Structures are given as structure tokens and as C-alpha cells.
């Protein structure tokens, strides 16, 4: 048995595909590709694939990882070639390797978040968002299994790189994305909507990197 890690991009209209749908899409792609996938044993065998990190629907990514197990050996380049042929428009296989880190090692993700606003100049945007950044705390409510909790996202916004354009801001930020602590980058537009007069029209989120707790790229 051979463990493989597939790094891929999920761009364009595949942003509208949920995590569950992606799973199905990949199982079928692997089946079509003829790669000798390892199946779980038991009454109802199914292909064994897992994703290192779930990506929210509506987000794009340059850095997704899928782990699988193969029955027997196959060169990584061959796996990449066979899989690439089966991908829908928008999913691009970057690399097939052996897994070096454990999925549990993932600690941070880098994002580029672009938020559009109607009829507003770069200067005004800068002014309003800078004002928000001067607040003592920027509290966002998050709902999880344990209920609604308050989080302060000021630290992340302060450390982020924000560029201002007419009608658009682009935020580049690194956020925790471990199973213990995970921040959805849509918290930025939520904060802007909550603490400024601005009304975000549409946001586009792109995951650009995944790192371990030493900030080394996940492999």
C-alpha cells in the first residue's frame, strides 16, 4: 500500500462546490482515472480519500490537499498525469507526493480576501477601515458546537496587509486554521459590515498557503 498526497487548486466556478460534493467529485475522478485506489474493507467498501482541510463553499484555493491510499505502487508523476485528465474545469492538480506532515500539523492558512463596495473611493475606504482598526477590540461572534462565542480579530487585521482601491479592498492575512482554532476569513467582511458604515457587495476569498505551527509550508 502506498500513501499519496495530492496538492490541487480549486478555482473559478468550482468555488460553488461544497466539501461533500468535492469528495464525491474526486472519488469518481479517481475511479475514472484507473489509479489503483485502496478501498476500505467491510460490507460496503468505499474509496479511502480524505482532505487535509475543508474549504468553505464560495472560497477558492491555490493550496488544497487530498490524501489517498493506493493498492500497490504507482509513480507520482503517473498518478498526477492520470488524475489531471479527469479534473473538471477549475480543479488543477499541482503535485502528487508522499505525505510528509500529518494533517493534524496544520496550524495556519494564508488568504487573500477581496471585498467590493459600491461607489466609494480608495481614500474613503482607507479612512473608514483605519478608523475601525483603532477600536480597542474588534469582536466577532462565531457559532460552533458549543454555542455562540465572541472572538477578537483585531490582531489578525492589524497584522494583515490591506490594499485600497476604488470600490475594493484586498486583505492579505494569515489566520489560524487548526482543528483547535479556526478562523473563517469571511470574518473580515463581517467585521466591516458590523463596525463601519460600509456595506460589502461581494467578497472573494482565496486560500494561498497552508502552514504548520512553525510557519513552514505544509507538505
Amino acid at each position, binding site marked *: 500500500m502506498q500513501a499519496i498526497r495530492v496538492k490541487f487548486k480549486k478555482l473559478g*466556478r468550482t468555488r*460553488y462546490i*461544497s466539501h461533500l460534493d468535492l469528495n*464525491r467529485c474526486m472519488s*469518481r*475522478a479517481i*475511479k475514472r482515472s484507473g489509479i489503483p485506489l485502496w478501498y476500505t474493507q467491510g460490507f460496503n467498501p468505499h474509496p479511502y480519500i480524505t482532505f487535509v482541510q475543508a474549504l468553505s463553499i464560495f472560497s477558492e484555493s491555490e493550496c488544497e490537499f487530498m490524501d489517498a491510499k493506493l493498492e500497490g505502487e504507482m509513480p507520482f508523476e503517473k498518478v498526477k498525469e492520470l488524475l489531471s485528465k*479527469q479534473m473538471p474545469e477549475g480543479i488543477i492538480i499541482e503535485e502528487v507526493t508522499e505525505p510528509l506532515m500529518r494533517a493534524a500539523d496544520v496550524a495556519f492558512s494564508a488568504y487573500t480576501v477581496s471585498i467590493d463596495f459600491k461607489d466609494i473611493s480608495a481614500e474613503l475606504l482607507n479612512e473608514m477601515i483605519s478608523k475601525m482598526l483603532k477600536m480597542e477590540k474588534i469582536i466577532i461572534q462565531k457559532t460552533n458546537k458549543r454555542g455562540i462565542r465572541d472572538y477578537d480579530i483585531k490582531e489578525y487585521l492589524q497584522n494583515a496587509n490591506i490594499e485600497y482601491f476604488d470600490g475594493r479592498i484586498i486583505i492579505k492575512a494569515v489566520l489560524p486554521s487548526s482543528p483547535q482554532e479556526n478562523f473563517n476569513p469571511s470574518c473580515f467582511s463581517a467585521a466591516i459590515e458590523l463596525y463601519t458604515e460600509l456595506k460589502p457587495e461581494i467578497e472573494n476569498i482565496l486560500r494561498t498557503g497552508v502552514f504548520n505551527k512553525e510557519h513552514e509550508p505544509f507538505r
Partner: protein
Amino acid sequence: MKQKLEQALRRVQKPARYTGGEVNSVKKDINAVNVRFAFCFPDIYEVGMSHLGMKILYSMLNEIEDVWCERVFSPWLDFEEQMRQKDIKLYGLESGQPIKVFDFIAFTLMYEMSYTGVLNMLDLAGVPLRTEQRSESDPIIIFGGPCACNPEPMAPFADLICLGEGEEVLCEVVDLYRRFKVERATKKAFLQAAASIEGIYVPSFYDVSYNDDLTVKAVVPTQSNAPARVKKRIIKQIDSAYFPEKFVLPFIEIVHDRVVLEIFRGCARGCRFCQAGFIYRPMREKSEEMLNKQARMLCNTTGYDEISVSSLSTSDYSALESLLNNLLEWTEAEKINLSLPSLRIDNFPRELMEKINSVRRSSLTFAPEAGTQRLRDVINKNITEEEILNTCLLAFEGGWTSVKLYFMISLPTETMEDIEGIATLAQKVVDTFYHMPNKPKGKAVNVNVSVSTFVPKAITPFQWESQDTMQAIEDKQKYLRSLIKSHKISLSSHKSHRSFLEAVFARGDRQLAQVIEEAFKLGCRLDSWDEFFDFKKWLLAFENVGIDPAFYANRRRDYEEIMPWDHLDYGVNKTFLKSESEKAHLNSVTQNCFDSCAGCGAGSLEGGCPLCRQ
């Protein structure tokens, strides 16, 4: 436009219904394409994408180099709201372009309750609803599908209607259109030429007159090209008929998310209530070799891990065991499941049965349809109580503890005794379980009785019958409920409102177009969904246009009456239907087509009937 759509998509459930880009979907260069075809299904993505007919015709049209066929489904209400708010016109999933600029917009009419869906989609596309309101620049609107056998309530909205199987006739229509496009001929000239293609019905070329009692007096062609009777088309050689090598693979889960293998068309059984059993005649089988090849090909191109065999009566396939054995030879190794709906499991080898997914996993299903042998003879459902109980016993001995029984109420000649028969039969199934000498300890049996309401349909022996009034149906349902004493039996029945409307439209005439239009304007859409179905609005629509629905649903017709669809020839002739109707009223059965030919007339269609060689 793109920005508006992206915003809309962020605000709806399951946005992947509206984005396209699926594996095996077809992209073409607009500049290299002559004919643009929108294939519309008047229900949501998950339902439409499950429809085999659409998969066949989509792939077939796209194999023609200069034709681009795109898929279009009805939006769910959330996306419709976004579309109307943001002025997004209904678009094809492949190109994302508004279908208003296409050459053809085709709808498949799957069931009566999708009619408002058709109007809603035309409206969302920005195309005027009625033929006479549309201009030269509007696309040509085509209807097809099973409800085309009586399309009259929808006729004023169609430019042309395809009767029967679409594979050949659609290609002929496209070929004709290509010529007329070059010559820049008028739409009317095109329709005149199309009317002489066999299987094409141009409703605007027929004048319908009515008697004082509102029944149809005559349907007369007004154009020389339009035949007095339009004959449906069938595929003569089903084995060589076009079948896709690929299915578009949805991202989201659809209703039938698997390879569908059509083993034959038509049915040889002749159950008198069943429209599909008559309008798809004659029965034509695909060869085992072809099916095995097609199944393998589709599994390879989709990566699906399930194959479902599709037909009206799986057990009637002549080489079923051998087909399954051939399929199992490779499906088991490739971890692909087989499922066989509508299989009669008596006389079916036990070892084979255990290898088949649907049988292995779920509960067993029977459709006795009626509670007494007399009524089963009336409807020509050739299944005896003994057969039902024997099969149940077989199943119980094999370890199953759950059985589902399907029945209909409001069948012709039905009495309260027949209703009692449903309860008695269900009880006998329960007793069969408990009388087993070696019944499993500590296990209970569960008999699920599902009761639907009979809808008389066009081109069946029951086309002259009345449906019970909604009150009478409710009384029968109540009575049945009072008869069920055992906790082992669970009864499910539904409000008859939708069946009532189906009964109206299934045998309706052109007058009803006003009702459908009015109901749509009152807000009716996606009527097959409980979330949206609003019976009060429908009643208001009838009232507003001054039409009494009972005239269509609850009136028994004379044999002499001219039916709104009598000018459409589905092979099966009226003389045969009448004799079947008369036999039904004498509790007399008719043999299936394998045992003896009953002379239905389907042999008169091109290619004849392979069963009786007529």
C-alpha cells in the same frame, strides 16, 4: 452580468445547481455553431438531471457538429427571486448565455404538475408565453415527452410538439431548420414544412371546435401540410438507436445519481390504468451484448459505482439472468453495485438475488394496486393473492422483515369491499410472517401500505372513466384507516388535491391553457413540490377563467365522445381501448403480449411489433 450572477449565487442554497461546468458537459465555440438548442426540464436540477431522455437527446444533439445543446432547469424559489430582483434572464448551463437568443427552446413534459413550471421558465427567459404573442426573433418552442400524448392544455404555448421518441425526429427538425435559417425564411414557413415531418404536431395549424355541452366537436387542420392525424414516432431498431457514451456528471447529488441502463422500451403487460404501458408500445428490447457494452462504457466515463436497470417491468426482459451474470462478471471486481427496481422476485434465483444491491439492502416492494382479485382483474394487474403471499414468505424466510405494498383507490368499479380487501391483504402478509414455523425470534414485521389516488389518463382503456370526487376519496381513505387494526401495518395516503388536478389536465382540452396561465400568474410553480403546491390558488385560477374542473376530472365520457387528443395517433387504437374498457367492466382479463396478441394496434407503427410480428 457576471457580478450580478455571482452575488445571486452567494445567496442561494446549492448554487452548483446553476453553475454548470460538470465533467462531461459539452462546451462549443459559439462562432462555429449554427443551431443553438436549449433543452429545458421544468423541474429543479436534481430531478431533471436524473432524466434519461434528456441525457440521450443532449448527447445526441451535441454530436452534431454545428449544434450546441445546453441544459436548463427550473430554479428553486430562492434563485428565482434573485433572478427577478437582479434581472438575470434564464440561461443555458453550458454557455451561461440567455436562452432567449437561442434557436430552439425545448421542454420535456414529464407530468401534468410541471405545466406552470414551463410557463415560469419561459417567463424567466423573457419569451412571451403564447405562440401568437411571439415574434420572428423569438426561439422556436418545442414540447415533447410523455404528456405530449395529450398536449392540448399546453398546446397554445408550443410552436411544435414531438410525439413519441425524439431521437430521429429532433435531428430531422434541426436539419430542416438549418436550411430555413440559410434562406432566412419565416417561422411560419418553417412550421409548415415541419408539420409534414412524421411525429411533428404544430398545434396552431389545427382548429378546435366545441359542442354546446363543451365537449370537443372537431379538431381540423387548417394548413394543407398538417395531417388530419399526427402519428407518433418510434425507434425501429432499439439496439442501434443512439445511446450516449457519457453522462454529464453532477457535482451535487441528484435523485438518480448512477448509471441508468435502459433494457427495453414499452411494456407487454397491459395494466389498464397505466399510461406508460400503452403510449410507449410496442415493447422493444436491447440485446444483452449492447447493454453490457453500454454499461461498461458509462461506468468508465463517469466513475459511478452503481448501475440501475431501467424499464417498466424488469422481470420481463427475456435474458435477465444472463444479462445480470454478464454484468456481475466485471461489476463485482470494480466494486460497482447493481440495482433492479420493479423486479418480481418469485422464480428468481436466490444466489443471484443476494448479489443485487437493491434487493439486498432495502425492503421489498409489491404493487398489487387493488385489494381484491375482482378489482385486480378489472385493472388487468396479473398478480394473484397467492403469488403475493408466496413471495412474501420467500422474502421473510430470506431474512427480510419489511414489506411495502402499493395500492390505488378510486379505481373504476371500486366498491367498499375492495377497500376492505386492501386491509385484509395487508393483514394476511402480517399473518404470513407470524405463521412461519421458524420465524426469527425477537423480530417484528413491518408492512407499509401506501395508497395513491387513481388518475384516468389519455390513451388508456380508462380514458372514459371519472375520477371519484375528492370527498369520496377522502371517505374511502378514512374507511381504510378505520379498518387497519394492527400496529405492524403502517398506512400512508395523501391528500387527493394534486391527483384531482392531474385528472383535469391529463384529459384536458385547449381551454385549460387559460387556467394554467392564470395559475402561473397567481404564483403557482413547482407544483409537484409540497413546499410550493397551493391548491387554493389553483381553484381560484379555475374560478377566474370560469372553467369547472369537475367537468374534466369527475365526468364519465361516452365512447362516442371526441377526445381532445383523438387527432394524435399513438398506434394503440381506440377500438382496442374500448374493448379493453368493456372487458374491464366485465371483470375480464387480457393476456400479456408474450402469451397472445390482443390487437392493440401498436404494430401499425413503423417497424411493427416485435412480439406479435404485426
